[in-house]
């Protein structure tokens, strides 16, 4: 009997001591680990919004396939009345060798664009898929217009992302999750008006500064003014015709109009 009990008891004791040590270390480090994780995520969020004066507020959201959490971003420039400046979505997607967790930032109002993505956690092949944490890959998303993106292997167009060499699966996984986030954005913010090539468009601030007196009211219809508040500024040629000579002259000086 002894030859069974003695080894079993010894192994039990060894395991018990190890477990005790582990749980001790786990309890001691739990808080710091959570803090480190949150710090990393917040740093990534601040990076996406260019270290501006913003605050992030998690909003209730029931997780979908890729989207884990949603944060609203508020600008603190006028501190009595924080103005909503965009969204940050926490996404997770199945990569080549495990889940990839990352965040994406969207701007709203007159900076309607993909602010950027940052990879938080991944376990892709080192030297291949793991290169997704490098700026060469994730930087491609910054400043893209909010519309579904495609992955390409050759040099990318404005709505395409160039895949990492030999890591197409990783690149596709991330881009697909981004597209899901974009769909979510459309469902909340509405699909932005597509800007045709023959329409003149400028950002709100730019045109406000160009028009004498600082007000567009003299030139534009109420509907056009309302549009400026919610969309990237779109003016038809007919509306441009109503702008004064002086305003056009200013635009010419800046080289914006031929």
């Amino acid at each position, binding site marked *: 009997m002894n030859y069974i009990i003695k080894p079993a008891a010894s192994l039990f004791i060894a395991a018990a001591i190890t477990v005790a040590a582990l749980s001790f270390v786990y309890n001691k480090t739990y808080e*710091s680990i959570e803090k480190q994780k949150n710090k*990393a995520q917040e740093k990534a969020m601040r990076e996406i919004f260019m270290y501006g004066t913003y605050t992030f507020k998690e909003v209730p959201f029931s997780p979908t396939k890729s989207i884990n959490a949603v944060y609203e971003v508020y600008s603190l420039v006028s501190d009595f009345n924080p103005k909503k400046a965009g969204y940050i979505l926490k996404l997770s997607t199945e990569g080549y060798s495990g889940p990839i967790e990352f965040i994406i930032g969207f701007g709203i109002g007159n900076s309607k664009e993909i602010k950027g993505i940052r990879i938080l956690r991944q376990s892709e092949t080192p030297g291949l898929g793991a290169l997704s944490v490098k700026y060469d890959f994730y930087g491609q998303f910054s400043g893209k217009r909010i519309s579904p993106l495609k992955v390409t292997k050759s040099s990318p167009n404005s709505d395409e992302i160039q895949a990492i060499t030999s890591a197409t699966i990783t690149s596709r996984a991330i881009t697909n999750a981004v597209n899901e986030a974009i769909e979510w954005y459309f469902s909340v913010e509405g699909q932005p008006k597509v800007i045709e090539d023959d329409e003149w468009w400028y950002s709100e601030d730019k045109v406000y500064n160009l028009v004498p007196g600082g007000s567009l009211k003299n030139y534009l219809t109420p509907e056009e003014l309302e549009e400026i508040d919610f969309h990237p500024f779109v003016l038809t040629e007919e509306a441009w015709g109503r702008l004064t000579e002086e305003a056009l002259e200013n635009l010419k000086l800046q080289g914006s109009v031929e």
Partner: protein
Amino acid sequence: MKHYIQLLKDGIYNKNPVLVQVLALCPLLAVTTSATNAITMGLSTTAVMICASSAISLIRKLMPSEIRIATSVVVVAGFVTILQLLLEAYAPQNVSEALGIYIPLITVNCIVFARVEAFASKNKILPSMVDALGMGLGFTLGLFIVGVIREFLGSGSIFGYELIREQSVHVLIMIMPPGAFFTLGVVIMVRNYMQAKSLESKKGGNK
């Protein structure tokens, strides 16, 4: 003292775990895609080996021989998890991120068990620690050599500093698993050649 130096020498050159014993090929394939990865993996394995070897050496007389291996598994896994928790909690962000996926690989690293089994379970604590240190450094050296070669040929850089920007000359297969085998084969060949040479010259001297 001489004994300890011999132990270190054995670990690093004479019985190098990667180049002579050809153990631990799993982490070799996985992490030697860059020199930095190779070194960090090597050093963290060394840390775990020293802890595990000294712990096993301490309890070697209390442990019935039937469950020696089972106990080693428990102890090594425990140390690896503790190391991982500590790194995640206190190491700078970039270090724990870089190491994150490699740490669990140490648990299944046979070199740790090989030393615990072959050495620590039969020797006193101090020699066991020195042996673990030597073998760990040897492991690091092996990974490092393979890592530098693969990183240079595969991504044209060393320690992440780009030396060759031109993508078309990068040999992609070198940073994929087959590249590890090619490189390891060549490195072992060079080492064996060096050893054969030194043996020959010794013989020649005796004549």
